[in-house]
């Protein structure tokens, strides 16, 4: 893309946007030792973790939700106790909907959540993104 003024403004900025990309520690320029822990490490939440839920295709919710949920919580309980109370505020949400009404993704890959299995055993990690799309 080029602007009127002839400046190339290519949107492809060449960054690797792989969702699970692992990055290395770059060189740090500082006036002394600089190594401080994450202010949101999983350990700060005990047996819980943060879980994001992105209702893709529904702009009513301007951003994905962020929940604090036990790692051992079953997906069925997560659905009933956290996900539905948040999303039923949308006037188009139907009380009859179940997880089977949606297609699911986890951290950018297709995903089939089993309602009886725990979030951890289903691969949901700290700050993972669960994506749901209405069928």
């Amino acid at each position, binding site marked *: *893309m080029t*602007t*009127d*003024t002839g*400046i*190339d*403004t*290519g*949107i492809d*900025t060449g*960054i690797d*946007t792989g*969702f*699970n*990309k*692992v*990055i290395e*520690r*770059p060189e*740090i*320029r*500082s*006036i002394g030792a*600089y*190594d*401080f*822990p*994450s*202010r*949101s*490490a*999983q350990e*700060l*939440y005990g047996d819980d973790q*943060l879980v*994001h839920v*992105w209702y*893709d295709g529904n*702009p*009513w*919710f*301007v*951003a*994905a*939700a*962020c*929940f*604090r949920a036990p790692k051992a919580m079953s997906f069925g309980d997560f659905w009933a106790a956290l996900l539905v*109370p*948040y999303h039923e*505020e949308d*006037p*188009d949400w139907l009380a009859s909907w179940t997880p089977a009404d949606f297609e699911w993704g986890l*951290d*950018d890959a297709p995903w089939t959540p089993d309602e009886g299995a725990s979030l951890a055993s289903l691969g949901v*990690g*700290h*700050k*993972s*993104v669960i994506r749901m799309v209405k069928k």
Partner: protein
Amino acid sequence: MTLTPDKPKAKARKLSMKERYSALTRDLDWDPSYVPADEMFPYTTFEGIKIHDWSKWEDPFRLTVDAYTKYQAEKDRRLYAVLDGFAQSQGHLSLTDASYLNAMKLFLQGVSPLEYQAHRNFAYLSRHLNGPGPRFASLCQSLDEIRHAQTEIHTLSNYNKYYSGFHSYLHMHDRVWYLSVPKSFFDDALSAGPFEFLIAIGFSFEYLLTNLLFVPFMSGASFNGDLPTMTFGFSAQSDESRHMTLGLEAIKFLLEQDPDNVPIVQHWIDKWFWRGYRVTALVAQMLDYMLPRKVMSWKEAFELYFEQQMLGGLFQDLAYYGIKPPRDVGKAIQEKEHLSHQAYWILYQFSHAAAFTTSVPSDETLDWLEEQYPDTFPTYRALWDKEKKNVANGGRHFVRGLPQLCQVCQIPMGFTEADSPFTICQRSVVFEGERYNFCSDGCQNIFEHEPVKFRQAWLPVHQIYQGNCGGADLGDVMQWYGMQPGDGGEYLGSPDHQNWLRWHAQADHSELGED
């Protein structure tokens, strides 16, 4: 015994302004002999910037202390005369609408504290830069910035007598979720080295983005009957032109001193363009939604002040040094049709946790927005139509929970993909075993360069979940934020709205005649 003073000899010739400036800066400078220079100036090497000759710094403004104070005192006198007159004549009643003040609440909570932080960091530069010219320019800017903080607070304090949301701005600035956006932006600059700060604030904030960050609030004031804020804006303007010059001189000086500085400066331009641009999301929604009488649309402002003036002007000049336009500028251009709509939709559905109010835009505003954004607004308008129905059925769209935040800009992740502009942009990387989430390639790129810095980000949502914000339910958090009932939520029916209607029903407007 009396002492007779010596008779003055020949009367000393008065120095010219230029000579006095030179005496103040160059003549008061010295080469250290008790300690090596790098002990006296310990912070100007670690960033990798190479400076060979500090005397090459040009001082476009040759101010002296007496000239500075005389000039500023005159401006302050004029400003305070306006403030007094406005207060005495109940000037607040002639604003376009009480809802206009939402823009000023955002300004006082989000921007004025940054003026104070700018004052602090320029004071630090005025001690720690090696060259006497830039040290004195930094000292002047440091004084300007504390005056800006003080005069903004004085200017807006009059509204605190009559309107909600103005009472605890400093307390809120350090705690509230949307204020963590400007706060974390400035904290990032404050915790960087002196040269990065000069590019971050001196160049990017004061030069590259000032017409999109600071000026729109002042134009909004002048269009909406806010004479005090407008007068403050004028009084700051002459300072701002000095700040712009300092920013531009800083970047040219760094680029001319050593070719090795160029890639470092380029990365800072890329980073601080995107950091600053993300903060402008708050300004974009203010221009398009919060102002009852519009100045211009965000898209127009972006095209004029950024695309034409900066990309078309400044970056053509910087190309001489091998500097390219900011890395993610293409995304910002693509977003100009979306940014304000997405940002206001965020604030609208979370304003129950804010110290300003929001409301469904009037039909007049919706039509205006559709004129300004014919390609994209119809899609956003459909959301407002849905919300209007929701309100008619007794609802009001307030999200029942907390949103996902970007690790870098800290804004709820409501921004979208360039190639699919109605799909939320989701990015993440894993660093030393932990996942981090981002709203955009720009924010991801910044994180990848400084993950150890940005993993310490104080993200409001995560802090609430860790129990660090007063408690687990919304009421506890609001109390910890320093909010009072009526500060946030829906504008219609709010205390500000009710008072406004009452004052105007009571007021005798016969002297204004018909119309």
